[in-house]
């Protein structure tokens, strides 16, 4: 005959064992997940590192300049285009139209005048000639090279260096 205390203890022991197994499996599953995450983080970091290098490579001033010349209608800023707020001319006060109230006579006149005048043709949008800033020496097409090409060159340089060292 099992005493009630023993029965309770037995049940508790079984429950503890079950809980232990559960926790143990959970930990092992979490550990697997952690491993996967760590691997992912590592590969993502490596990818970010490579992308940073590629970003810098794609931002070579020479390449940007070439692309800007090809696709944009902009030229470098010159000193003449810069000014401070203090040097701006003050708007002459006497030229401001005085606010006036009239009964509508002048408005008709203005409209009539406008209708009578020949319509000015809107000026054709003036497209600035794209002038190369400085002629390039050693015209390499920087815009179309990729980091991968450079890496290939590096590697071929290693091969080259190896040969030179072997001599």
């Amino acid at each position: 005959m099992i005493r009630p205390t023993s029965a309770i203890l037995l049940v508790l022991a079984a429950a503890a064992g079950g809980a232990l197994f559960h926790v143990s499996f959970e930990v092992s599953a979490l550990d697997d997940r952690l491993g996967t995450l760590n691997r992912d983080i590592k590969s993502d970091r490596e990818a970010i590192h490579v992308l940073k290098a590629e970003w810098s490579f794609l931002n070579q001033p020479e390449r940007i300049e070439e692309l800007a010349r090809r696709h944009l209608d902009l030229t470098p800023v010159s000193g003449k285009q810069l000014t401070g707020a203090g040097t701006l001319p003050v708007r002459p006060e006497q030229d401001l139209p005085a606010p006036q109230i009239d009964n509508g006579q002048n408005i008709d006149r203005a409209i009539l005048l406008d209708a009578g005048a020949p319509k000015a043709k809107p000026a054709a949008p003036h497209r600035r000639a794209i002038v190369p800033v400085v002629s390039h020496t050693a015209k390499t097409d920087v815009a179309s090279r990729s980091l991968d090409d450079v890496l290939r060159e590096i590697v071929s340089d290693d091969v080259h260096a190896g040969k030179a060292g072997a001599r």
Partner: protein
Amino acid sequence: MIRRIKMESTKKQAIETARNRLLIGGALMAAAFLVVGARLFDIVVLNENEDLRRAAARDIVRPDIMARADIVDRNGILLATSLPTASLFANPHKVSDPASAATRIVEVLPDLSEEVVAARLSADKGFVWLRRNLTPTQQFEINRLGIPGLDFEEEERRVYPHGRLAGHIIGFTNVDNAGLAGIEQSMDAAISGAKEPLKLSIDIRVQQIVRQELAAQIEKFKAIGGGGIVLDVRTGEVISMVSLPDFDPNAPAQAPDETRFNRITLGVYELGSVFKIFNHAIALETGAASMSKSYDATKPIKISRFRISDYHPENRWLTVPEIFKLSSNIGSAKMALDIGSERQRKYLGHLGLLRRTSIELPEQSMPIIPARWREINTMTISYGHGIAVSPLHLASAVAATVNGGILRPATLIRAKTPETGGVQVFSAETSDKMRRLLRLVVENGTGRNADAPGYLVGGKTGTAEKQVNGSYKRNALISSFVGVFPATDPRFVVYIMIDEPKGIRESFGYATGGWTAAPVVGGVIKRMAPLMGIKPLDETAPEIVRALNVNLTAGPAEGRPNATN
């Protein structure tokens, strides 16, 4: 009865013994559990954090620290980095069909020979290298082949995204990632294993501007090379340093030796008339000459077998500002005699022109100075002959002359707190006079081609004949120009030198500094000033005219004994 009692007592004794033993055993057990309990308490409650930390250290991915830290420019743009690369190796025992595997590998890596790969794959070894440092794309393609027995080893490779643009500054490393030149060599210890990227004082945009403008001019004047440097006069920081021809640090082994030569720091040259800046500054500082003094430049100076003459002879008495404006060798030599050899040498030493610079590059040279400082040396040094310094020496000394007279060591490293110390070489007053004189040269002297409207460029031309085998060659020139801007309160020194330019029709056959280097300085300033946030000034504003005014006429007290024009 007695026996029973005896028996009872024996029984009692046995029970007593058993109880005692039980007690001892129980006490031992209790003590053991107490120890376990105490340890449990210690681990769970007292040392909780330490264990968490230990667990964290095991589980969290190491932040990606490469063997070498990155190098970035002053705006954080990546100039050098280490990329993880993969090297391909194979275990030949696991490769089932070496011949077909070799064919497929060579399709992805066409520079490998099929026979070599096949031979390696059929070797009786457990490990053979097939190819070091694959690009990510190549690695992906090899993986896609799905050949069993191939594997990759992780390695690191130094990459310079901006290629030749900053090649001379950054330098390069060998395959084992040890610095072999430039910053990579001089800062090797600081770069290896550092977490933070190394920040240089270079601005890659200005670097591009200088390189582009200089390259165009070198091509135009059929020169053999050239160099350019931009220096912040307030901090001594090098903003740009270009030496042409240059090389791609990504492939240093393929670069010819002469392209690796850094003309700015390693080359020492007799730089010519740009030295008159120091001659005038020393004369004004020591009181050997004043702005209103005049010198007789009517005829060339003959001293022993030397003859000092002017390039554009005026054949008249010249005032001190006129000597500077017209770049008169005769006048400068006479001023140098008034200064004296001892004082000249002392001040050139203070300007750092007689010792190595402090720049963080291994490629450096000691200036070449006369062994004995005789009178003739003093006279030739006044206009930049008989002393050879690197362009960096010159730019640094010019910065000290115009920034209020304080020499700050030139540096390539961006400091967290800008340099405020330095050595006072000239007085602020002398520095102010020199700024006026430099502006005079660009306004209506030999350096007019360097002007950039609104930026008040001041500067000095220099044209020196190169010495070849001990004698000067008339048609091999080092033409240079040193510019400072804005002249009222200089921020930057821009120095450009062009090696052996040939005169062209556009320059009327001249290959002098004013025709070759000065336009480059003007072009660089026009393009870099807006980038550096320098506001253009109104050159006709009265306060600016007053700040830069120079009186060209001789004063009443000093000057020629009898006035003959």
